[in-house]
């Protein structure tokens, strides 16, 4: 088994349940898109320029002192399993994980800070915090941005701000997002309207791993759709308001699910899900996510599911395929993974 995976902690701090609504907001992320002046964007750069950018970016990350005892990675040198592991930890995107040309990442020892190098932009730096913590994540991301900005000349202008490969990211280059668990709104079939209304507020919702990914287990990555023309604080404030509103809607939906004709149905669905999680002998990640979503909602509704929210969150990460294979200590076929997943989940749920 790869040494890289062993060098990461078995549990991550950003998955601890904390903050005001631990049952609804899994984590908060603030990222900045940055590019180096004097180089073409990654899609137009030659391999040796990409290697040069990576060298400069990793050296700068080291110089900031924010990544001591951290991980400095060359993506194209990693095995598919190691890449998959980094995606599951939300440190690199699917796009970066499939890099064949020089690409990199720096991940802090605590795994709260990370930098993707040569993804769509030269640098995508992020702060990932547990729970609903926009202000905290923003402050830490700004600190990282400023520290890197002392080492590297970022491409920027007075009119369009920080310049990025895609014009949708130019300006502040900020993306603020919260990973929200909205099972009751989903169950009541209200998500289409909710998403529709979000789109009018300059907000988008995506799947659990970000851009271009599936909605899994009723987890939505809610983030700002635009990032030019207002201050970073205003973009943060907008997402903060939207999330609070979503929470209110989810609470109302959960109350509806516990009323009248819905109550028995809800309770039945939650406990059937728990039964399946406890007793299944083979479990795909998709099936696991559908059912853990209901069990998570059940716990929020006050029923005893045998797990607290921190454990729910950790399990959600640990049941992913690369994590399963890391726990098994070897590569597994999809069928073996499903069996191993079911078995290790049973042990946690006794």
């Amino acid at each position: 088994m790869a040494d890289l995976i062993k060098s990461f902690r078995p549990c991550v701090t950003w998955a601890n349940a904390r903050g005001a609504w631990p049952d609804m907001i899994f984590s908060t992320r603030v990222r900045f898109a940055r590019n180096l002046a004097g180089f073409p964007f990654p899609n137009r750069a030659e391999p040796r320029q990409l290697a040069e950018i990576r060298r400069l970016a990793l050296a700068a990350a080291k110089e900031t002192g924010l990544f001591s005892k951290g991980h400095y990675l060359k993506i194209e040198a990693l095995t598919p399993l190691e890449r998959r592991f980094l995606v599951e930890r939300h440190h690199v995107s699917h796009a970066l994980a499939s890099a064949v040309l020089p690409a990199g990442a720096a991940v802090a020892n605590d795994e709260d800070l990370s930098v993707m190098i040569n993804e769509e932009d030269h640098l995508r730096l992020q702060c990932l915090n547990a729970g609903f913590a926009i202000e905290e994540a923003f402050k830490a991301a700004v600190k990282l941005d400023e520290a890197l900005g002392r080492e590297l000349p970022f491409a920027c202008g007075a009119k369009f701000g920080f310049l990025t490969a895609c014009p949708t990211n130019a300006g502040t280059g900020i993306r603020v997002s919260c990973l929200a668990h909205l099972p009751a709104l989903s169950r009541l079939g209200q998500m289409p309207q909710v998403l529709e209304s979000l789109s009018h507020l300059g907000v988008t919702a995506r799947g659990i791993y970000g851009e271009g990914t599936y909605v899994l287990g009723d987890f939505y990555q809610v983030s700002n759709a635009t990032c030019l023309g207002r201050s970073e604080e205003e973009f943060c404030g907008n997402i903060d308001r939207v999330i609070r509103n979503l929470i209110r809607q989810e609470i109302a939906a959960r109350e509806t699910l516990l009323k009248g004709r819905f109550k028995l149905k809800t309770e039945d669905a939650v406990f059937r899900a728990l039964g399946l999680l406890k007793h299944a002998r083979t479990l795909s990640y998709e099936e696991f996510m559908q059912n853990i979503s209901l069990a998570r909602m059940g716990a929020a509704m006050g029923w005893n599911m045998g797990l607290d929210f921190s454990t729910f969150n950790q399990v959600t990460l640990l049941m992913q395929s690369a994590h399963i294979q890391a726990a098994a200590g070897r590569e597994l076929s999809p069928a073996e993974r499903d069996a191993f997943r079911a078995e290790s989940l049973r042990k946690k749920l006794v």
Partner: protein
Amino acid sequence: MLCEECREKNAVVFLKLAVNNKVTEMNLCPACAAKKGMGFGLESGAFNISDIVGNMSGYFKDFLPPEKKTLRCAACGLKYSEFKESGRLGCPECYAGFEPQLTELMSRIHGSSQHAGRACRGGPELKLSKAETCRRLDELRAALKEAVAKEDFEGAARLRDALKELDG
């Protein structure tokens, strides 16, 4: 529940896609899901949403104003038409090269075309590797030669200054 695609086997893959803030649901059997390239997409990490829902490259085309075919970025050579097609710029200088067109696009995407966030400083000079410095010197020398051949003396003078600065 039967698979939506073949209507024969049981659906075991239940997917929800969020695209453009709309949720599409699909319930498929493993064979049909695999055919759609997403059966074990999460396991392999190799799926591509554009295969499933059609891509959005038309997005920029509709919003960018038409322009002369010859318009291109002076620094990296990216043609405006290529940008319209891909939606991706080639280098930071493209923002200056396509400024009027981008101003219109930015207003449509962001509702504004004026940065109002944190000011950005130029940052320090980079300690480039020898290889990159050589590559840039070669590029400048070639451009200088071309400028002289075209009798563009103003451009040549600028390039000569840049060469001097880079060469130390």
